[in-house]
């Protein structure tokens, strides 16, 4: 997340994010789920706990060529 923010030139204090996560987990005491962390250009920090998505009855796998955008590999 910090790397993505650096690539977007988005000022992000990852320490604040970590403290938010700790505080939310200490209060919510979740079991299994998803932890969503959002930081916006406007300076908002949002931490949410979401339910797990319902898995489908069957999965289909396929091949694809991994082609990352190498320009963003600097950080």
């Amino acid at each position, binding site marked *: *997340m*910090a*790397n*993505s*923010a650096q690539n*977007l030139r*988005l000022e*992000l204090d*990852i*320490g*604040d*994010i*970590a*403290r*938010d*996560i*700790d*505080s*939310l*987990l200490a*209060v*919510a*005491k*979740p*079991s*299994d*789920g*998803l*932890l*969503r*962390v*959002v*930081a*916006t*250009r*406007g*300076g*908002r*920090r*949002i*931490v*949410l*706990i*979401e*339910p*797990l*998505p*319902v*898995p489908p009855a069957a999965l289909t796998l396929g091949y694809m060529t991994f082609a*990352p955008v*190498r*320009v963003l*590999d*600097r950080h």
Partner: protein
Amino acid sequence: MRLPQRFRGAAKDPPVAIDDPRLEGWENRQHFEIRAPQWRGATSLRALGVDAACVAPSHPLDRRGRGDIYLVVAPKPVVPCERDSREPSIESLQSRASEGRKRPPDHRLGSDGDTAFVDGALTPLSDARIPVTDEGLLRGDGVFEVMRLYDGVPFARQSHLRADGELGPEPAPRARHRRHRS
């Protein structure tokens, strides 16, 4: 008198590598028949810190520097996931996954009784709001990360946040989690 750079002519292009064993395994990114634009691409990538080179794997170039030329970049190193000793093993995750397919999902999470953190303040989830003037909302500009929670512990938290030592040690797990894993 020394001429300005623009009158001295372009600098000679670096050679295109032909059958260079050091470039084996590099990823082919682009193919050109003319040399100059391709070399500019490699130079631009190098300026950004990406190892890039020009290769002509099949035939040497003609006297005008043309031929089958490929722009290649070094393969991205595989960075192992930072594992936390408190995280469950792969076997236990596979077992959980098989159990999860049998039981319904826990819909208590994310309900109105839950809480959210917005700008460092604990807020009931139903009351959590951000203004419509937020730059992230208006321009879709921001970053997000989603982590899997196992017994309230985010999986691969350091790797997701990529704090590079800013976070310090992970907090100790809650007592009920220690009991669960023992």
